[in-house]
């Protein structure tokens, strides 16, 4: 039986479909027994799927000075 440390390592590899058959088997056996690592797997997937939307929620704005500076740079081209 692999450890939780190893199982959580394999979870990310699984997300990229990079598990060897033996790793797949080891992970499946571990997850069948371990509810904590099953939670980790779901939360890990959740973080990965939603991270790409981060910038849509940041609402950062360039300062007026920064915008003027960029406009000036473009004008000088």
């Amino acid at each position, binding site marked *: 039986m692999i*450890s*939780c*440390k*190893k199982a*959580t*390592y394999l*979870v*990310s*590899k699984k997300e*990229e479909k*990079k598990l060897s058959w033996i790793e797949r088997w080891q992970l499946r056996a571990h997850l069948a027994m371990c509810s*904590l690592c099953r*939670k*980790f797997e*779901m*939360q*890990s*997937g*959740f*973080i*990965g*799927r*939603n*991270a*790409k*939307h*981060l*910038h*849509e*929620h*940041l*609402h*950062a*704005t*360039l300062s007026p000075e*920064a*915008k003027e*500076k*960029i*406009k000036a*740079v*473009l004008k000088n*081209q």
Partner: protein
Amino acid sequence: MPENKLKPDQWINAYGDALYSYTLARINDTGIAEDLVQETFLSAWKARDSYKGEASEKSWLFTICKNKIIDHYRKKARDIVQPMAETSATDQFFDSEEHWTVEDKPTDWAMDYASKMDNKEFYKILNGCKKKLQEIQQAVFSMKYMEDLDAAEICKALGITSSNYWVLIHRAKLQLRTCLEKNWINLK
């Protein structure tokens, strides 16, 4: 088919903030993010004759910006890639038997994991947690989960081995998960 046209005089007002948010979500430094946005517009301006109008002006600019960000990681990689200490960083989460410690074991989150998260608070905390990662972990995390690059492309850009890559992803995930759980009260 309607052809897309560039309107460079409107770029900064129309896309400046969106490109800046996009960059800042991936590169935490406001000064560097500003520089990369400026470089994006500059490169776009120089390449304006090669714009074929197939993509919208907006997605064309975002593609240029994305390449600037990846270039930035590539150039920085030499400074931020540190020799890997196999122990320490992940070991805080696990005991001597490599099972979860009581403090760091995952608890249930009061949400549907399959749903798309739309909560502003969540992203604020995610951003704060991401900033706490080591720079190299942030680079790997952004390239993988925000830019959708595959492992081989990321390893090549950063000059790391695939086993380094998996260790970095593993650590980043463990730290983000714990940080989210500790800081986001609505989870419980």
